[in-house]
């Protein structure tokens, strides 16, 4: 039997909090993070709400002692990854440690600053602002800051990116390549993503309503989330052995369209089914699904239909925490993985905010109020553009 991969620590920064404690408090108090744009400069400023992290670049740089030309994506990443490591209590330098980080935006935020200056007057473009454009550069900044050298890589598969980085970590541990992996993802808000999603006409000008019959689209958010995944051997040596493991994962693709999911959620279905198989679980064993639940017409019908088909008769409680954080793109899989771990640890099912009307195509509705319940197995869905669909399952480990 393959060895288990344990979750030894979590770290997070999002619009609803700068650390795990603040995020958990906001989830319990149903405090959402969307509001009018404050930091992001855009012509859509008063029209499209977003979920921004409250700390400015200056705040983040001074906290981390990093220079101020560093991409916000790298700053958010470093804050959350540091918290995850410190939360785990593991001395990462004692083990073969990897850092796997996902992002869809990379250093685009700084490139946009460069572009404006460069277009106005070419010699004015500050090249310091473009050297970290590439997604991997952002990962390297954080890895260097953390002192992780044994294995460093970047995953960029749109909105399933950081779910994929988490299970790549698990695979590397199970195959014996690494002992400890800090895995997750980061994305900062940029004009590029805002305008791109706006072109696709899937942004909500109000606060989003995932899984609602009258949903209008998504709100973009920003943030970062990381898990510290460890091998059985590392787990055994900890003061307190972790109680939660990543038990199942799967990635599938429905090869339907550049951006949209197939309406019947083929990829979503395959990802969830594959994750259950990997975990050796039946649909009835899942106690809660943290939905991808973006609030777009297309995602929610595809995801809802896939759940309807897979969980027929055993619909577990479901909710989309994007109703708190907005859609954090490359970070969302990891942020929601952190919430899934917290759900098991705290025995909580988080509410799906602003839900009003059940979707007519599916026979279940999301949870609308905080529920206290012992959870053993939690599924976390992340479905990306291009039909790139991933599901993770976190399980409480007995004994």
């Amino acid at each position, binding site marked *: 039997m393959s060895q288990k991969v344990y979750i030894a620590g979590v770290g997070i920064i999002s619009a609803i909090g700068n650390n795990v404690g603040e995020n958990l408090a906001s989830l319990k108090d149903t405090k959402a993070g969307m509001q009018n744009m404050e930091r992001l400069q855009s012509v859509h400023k008063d029209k499209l709400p977003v979920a921004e992290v409250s700390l400015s670049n200056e705040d983040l740089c001074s906290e981390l002692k990093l220079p101020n030309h560093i991409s916000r994506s790298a700053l958010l990443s470093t804050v959350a990854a540091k918290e995850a490591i410190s939360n785990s209590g593991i001395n990462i330098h004692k083990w073969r440690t990897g850092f796997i980080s996902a992002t869809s935006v990379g250093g685009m935020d700084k490139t946009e600053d460069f572009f404006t200056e460069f277009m106005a007057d070419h010699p004015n473009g500050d090249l310091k602002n473009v050297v970290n454009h590439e997604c991997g550069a952002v990962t390297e900044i954080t890895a260097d800051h953390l002192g992780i050298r044994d294995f460093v890589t970047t995953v960029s598969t749109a909105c399933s990116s950081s779910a994929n980085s988490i299970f790549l970590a698990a695979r590397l541990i199970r195959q014996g390549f690494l002992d400890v992996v800090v895995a997750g993802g980061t994305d900062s808000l940029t004009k590029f993503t805002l305008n*791109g999603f706006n*072109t696709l*006409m899937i942004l909500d000008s109000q606060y989003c309503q995932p899984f609602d019959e009258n949903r209008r689209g998504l709100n973009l958010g920003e943030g970062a989330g990381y898990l510290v995944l460890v091998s059985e051997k590392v787990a055994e040596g900890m003061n307190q052995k972790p109680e939660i493991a990543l038990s199942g994962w799967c990635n599938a*693709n429905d*090869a*339907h*369209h*550049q*951006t949209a999911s197939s309406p019947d959620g083929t990829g979503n279905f395959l990802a969830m089914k594959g994750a259950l198989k990997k975990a050796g679980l039946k649909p009835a064993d899942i106690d809660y699904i943290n939905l991808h639940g973006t609030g777009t017409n297309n995602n929610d019908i595809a995801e809802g239909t896939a759940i309807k088909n897979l969980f027929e008769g055993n619909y577990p409680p479901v909710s989309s925490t994007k109703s708190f954080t907005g859609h954090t793109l490359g970070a969302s899989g990891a942020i929601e993985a952190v919430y899934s771990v917290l759900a098991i640890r705290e025995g909580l099912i988080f509410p799906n905010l602003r839900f009003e009307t059940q979707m007519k195509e599916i026979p279940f509705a999301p949870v609308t109020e905080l529920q206290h319940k012992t959870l053993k197995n939690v599924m976390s869905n992340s479905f990306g553009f*291009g039909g790139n669909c991933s599901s993770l399952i976190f399980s409480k480990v007995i004994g």
Partner: protein
Amino acid sequence: MSPEDQLNITKSVIIRNNSIYVDGNIIYEYFKNDNFLNDSYESLDNNYPKFYKMDVLGKLGMLATHLLLKDSDIENHLPSDVGIVLSNSNSSLDADIRYFDSVKSFPSPALFVYTLPNIVTGEISIRYKLKGENAFFISQQFDADWLHFYISHLFQNNKINACIGGWIESINSDHDVCLFLTERKESKNGINFTAENLNNINSLGDDVSNILP
């Protein structure tokens, strides 16, 4: 590589200079007009409604792949065993410009979704249900050495058993396509998969006088 692992170019398609060639033979000639892509696709007996909403790169990919895979036994391979390795020098610039023009009035979602070079790879994959390794490289010119190296590497590591490879370019209504199918099986034309042969195939139609009798 053992003899049975010998890689061969089993088919090639060129679209350039007002002509479409399959295995070196002209099968379609056209006068430059806006309808060339639709006309030739229809004349080649095709029926894929999604073709009409594609950008030029996508349409060229559809057209060339249709000819490349016609009469092939590509369906005998597992979907995950067929790779796609493409290249060009202008990325999706043609679609980018068209999209950017639309932004001045209303940003077009239909144009926006084509503003990446590897969308054509996705369109080919969806149409022919291919799920193997894929890559899209940007290079100044048709880089036979690199394509040969990369595709050989995929075969040698048993990642694929067949590969659609080559060059697919469109800018300002100029088309330039050179696609080839690489397989482990014998080629009826007996063309080994080498960088030199790729260059030979790609030289076709560069200068029309070369290919006239």
